C-alpha cells in the first residue's frame, strides 16, 4: 500500500493540488511592483501580501477552502475559478490603497505558474468533461470585468489607457473574420457539393488543400501583388477601398484559408451518406432536389458543422496576422507589444482573442450537440 493508504482518488488529487499551490505561493513571486511601464521594480511574494493585505487574503483563502469542501466533487473547477478570481481580482479589490499612485503590479512567475497549476487538473480530466474548464474560464472573465476598474494590475492599467483602441480593434477583428467567413461559406457551399460529386470539384478541393500548405503570412504577402495591381488598373475599385494592403487582401487570404475546412466538412459529410440510403430515396421516388434537401443535407450536417467550427476557430486566430498588412484587428496589440517588449500589451490582444475563439468553439459545439440530439442517434464511427 502506497503512502496514500485508502484515500479516495479525488482526495488524493485535492491534496496534491493543495501542496503544489502552497509551494508555488511560497517559492515564487506573484507580482512585481513597477514604478512605470519601462522600469522593473521589486518582486512581491505571497507572504509579503499576507503581511500587508493581511485580512483580505486570509479571508479569501478561508472562504475558498470552505467552497472546496462544500463542492468536493467539483473541487478542481471551484479551486480554479476561485484562484483565478483571486489572482486577477484581489489587486483591484484591495490593492488600490497599498500600491502607490502611478505604480503598477506586473504579473510574475508565480502568477503564471498558478494558472497552469490550477487549470491542469481540468485539462487532464479523465472523464473528458469540458464544463469544468469552461466554468473556470468564464468565472475568470467575469472576475476580470468585475474588478478591473481602478486595479493596479499592469494589464488593467494598460487596458484603461487603450480602452477605445481595444474596442476599435475588436470590432475590426470581428469584421475581418465575419466578412471572410461569409465569403468563404458562399464559395464553399457550391464548391463542397461539387467536390463530393464532380471531378473538377475534386480538383478545386485538392487545390485548396495545396493552398493550405502556404504559410498564412506568405499568402498575405502574395495577395498584395495582384490586388494592388487591380487597384492600379481600376481606380474605381481603389475608391471602394481595394488596395494591396488593408482589409481587402486580409479578407481574401482569410477566406481562402477557411475554404478548405468548410469544403472538406461538406465533402466528407456528403460522402458519409450511406449509398443504400441514397438508392432507397431514389427508388421510393424522391426527386434529386428532395434527395438533397431531405436526406443528404440532414445526414451530412454533423460533419458540415464540425468543418464550420474548425474554420471559425482557425479564422479568428489567423486574423491576428492582419495588422502585418495594415488591416488591424486584435493582432495590433500583439505586434505592438512585441515591438515594445510589453507583455501587458501582448496580453491585451491575446486574452480577448482567446475568449473569442473559446466562445465560438463552445457555441458551435452546442449547436452540433443539439443537432445530433434532435436526430436522436449517435453517428457510428464518424
Amino acid at each position, binding site marked *: 500500500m502506497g503512502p496514500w493508504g485508502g484515500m479516495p482518488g479525488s482526495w488524493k488529487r485535492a491534496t496534491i493540488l493543495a501542496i503544489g499551490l502552497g509551494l508555488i505561493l511560497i517559492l515564487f513571486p506573484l507580482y512585481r511592483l513597477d514604478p512605470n511601464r519601462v522600469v522593473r521594480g521589486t518582486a512581491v511574494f505571497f507572504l509579503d501580501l499576507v503581511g500587508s493585505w493581511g485580512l483580505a487574503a486570509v479571508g479569501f483563502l478561508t472562504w475558498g477552502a470552505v467552497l472546496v469542501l462544500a463542492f468536493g466533487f467539483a473541487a478542481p473547477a471551484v479551486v480554479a475559478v476561485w484562484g483565478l478570481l483571486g489572482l486577477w481580482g484581489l489587486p483591484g479589490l484591495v490593492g488600490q490603497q497599498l500600491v502607490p499612485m502611478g505604480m503598477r503590479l506586473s504579473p510574475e512567475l508565480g502568477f503564471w505558474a498558478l494558472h497552469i497549476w490550477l487549470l491542469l487538473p481540468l485539462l487532464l480530466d479523465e472523464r473528458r468533461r469540458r464544463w469544468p474548464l469552461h466554468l473556470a474560464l468564464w468565472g475568470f472573465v467575469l472576475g476580470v470585468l468585475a474588478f478591473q476598474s481602478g486595479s493596479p494590475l499592469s494589464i488593467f492599467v494598460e487596458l484603461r489607457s487603450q480602452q477605445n483602441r481595444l474596442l476599435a480593434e475588436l470590432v475590426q477583428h470581428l469584421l475581418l473574420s465575419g466578412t471572410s467567413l461569409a465569403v468563404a461559406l458562399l464559395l464553399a457551399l457550391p464548391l463542397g457539393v461539387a467536390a463530393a460529386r464532380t471531378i473538377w470539384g475534386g480538383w478545386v478541393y485538392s487545390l485548396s488543400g495545396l493552398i493550405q500548405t502556404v504559410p498564412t503570412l506568405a499568402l498575405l504577402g502574395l495577395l498584395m501583388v495582384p490586388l494592388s495591381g487591380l487597384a492600379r488598373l481600376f481606380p474605381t475599385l481603389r475608391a471602394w477601398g481595394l488596395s494591396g494592403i488593408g482589409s481587402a487582401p486580409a479578407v481574401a487570404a482569410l477566406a481562402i484559408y477557411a475554404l478548405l475546412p468548410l469544403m472538406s466538412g461538406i465533402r466528407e459529410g456528403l460522402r458519409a451518406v*450511406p449509398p443504400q440510403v441514397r*438508392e432507397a*430515396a431514389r427508388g*421510393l*421516388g*424522391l426527386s434529386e432536389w428532395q434527395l438533397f434537401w431531405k*436526406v443528404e443535407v440532414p*445526414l451530412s450536417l454533423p460533419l458540415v458543422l464540425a468543418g464550420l467550427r474548425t474554420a471559425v476557430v482557425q479564422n479568428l486566430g489567423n486574423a491576428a496576422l492582419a495588422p502585418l498588412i495594415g488591416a488591424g484587428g486584435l493582432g495590433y496589440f500583439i505586434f505592438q507589444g512585441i515591438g515594445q517588449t510589453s507583455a501587458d500589451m501582448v496580453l491585451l490582444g491575446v486574452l480577448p482573442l482567446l475568449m473569442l475563439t473559446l466562445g465560438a468553439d463552445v457555441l458551435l459545439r452546442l449547436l452540433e450537440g443539439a443537432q445530433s440530439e434532435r*436526430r436522436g442517434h449517435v453517428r457510428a464511427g464518424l
Partner: protein
Amino acid sequence: MSELVFEQVHYTYGSIPAITDLSFSVERGEFVVLIGPSGCGKTTTLKLVNRLLEPTRGRILLRGQDLSTFDPVALRRSMGYVIQDVGLFPHWRVEDNIAAVPRLLKWPRERIRDRVREMLALVGLDPEAYRRKFPHQLSGGEAQRVGIARALAADPPLLLMDEPFGALDPLQRARHQRFLRAIQAKVRKTVLMVTHDLDEAILLADRMLVMNQGRAVQFDSPEAILRSPNNAFVRRFVGTDRSLKRLIRLPVTCCMAAVHPLRLGSDSLEDNGRVWGWVVDEQDRFVGWINFEDTERERWHDAVTPLSWEECATPETNLKDALSMMLALGLKHLPVLDDLGRLVGELNLPTIESLLREDSLES
C-alpha cells in the same frame, strides 16, 4: 394485358453486359421470383423496372405502355421498392420512414397516420412500441420489416423486393416467409422478388425466373422447373434433391389421413385391429399416443406417451418440413394440429414415399 413485359432487354454497365436479351412477362397479381447465382443480373433487372437504370436496348412495358414514357419519379412512387440493404433513413423515425411515399404523394395527415399504424400492424410490429423508434434501435429483422412496410405504405399495385430477407438467420427467414405469404394472401399485389435461396423461391413463387449470366434460362412454375429443368444449368442449380424440393410446395393437408383418436375419460380401449393410437382430451386437444400391446385395458390412461407441440405438424407445414421432422424424430406417423391444438389428421411416411416415387417416374 400483362402487368409487366420485358422485350429483348439489354443492359450494360459501361462495356460490361449485365442483362442480355431478357424477355418475360408478369401477369397482374402474380408473385414472380428472380433467382440465380450472385452477379447474374437480378438486382439490375429490378432497377430497370423502376427506372433507376434505363435499358441499353429493348423495351419494357407497364400495363401495355412503354416504361420510358412515364415520369420516372412518379413511376417510382407507384411501385413499392425494398432494396437489398434495407436502406432506412437513419435520421427519420420508423413512422417517418413508412410515411415517406404517402407524404411525397401529399396524402392528408390523418390518413398517413392511420396508414403508418396499419402498415406496422401488417408486418407484425406493435405500432405504439415501434412508431417513434429510430432505425438504429431496430434489430436486423425489424428493420427489414419496416423496409417492407415502407414499400407497401402507398398501396402500390407493383412491389419490387431485392432479397428482402437477406440479413436474417434461417429461423427468422422462415417466419418472415410465412408472414410474407400471409400478407400476399391479404393484399394481392404483383410482386417481383429477388432471392438466391432456392427453397424460399419454391415456397413463395407463382413463377420463377431462373437467370444466369444476364440471361433468362427458364421461366415457369416451381413445380414445372423442379419436374423438368430445361437444361444442365437449371438441373445443377436446383440440385439432385429436386424431387424432395417439390415437397416444399405441398401442404400436409394434401395427403393427410383421417384419424380416430381415443378420448381421455370417455372412450374405453377396444380392439380396433391397430397396435397403437392417438389420444386427445375431452376438448379434442391432442395429448399423445398409446401403444395397445402390453397395456392393461382398465389403466390405459397411464400408458399415454405425450408428444410436445414441436413434434407435430400444422396444416400450413409443407411436406418437406414434415418429412424432415419425421426422419429426425424417427416417426412413421405425424399428427397434424390446428391453431387450437386439436388433432385434425395424420401424415404417413408411406404416403410421402409414394409421392416421391411418382415424381421420379415422371422425370
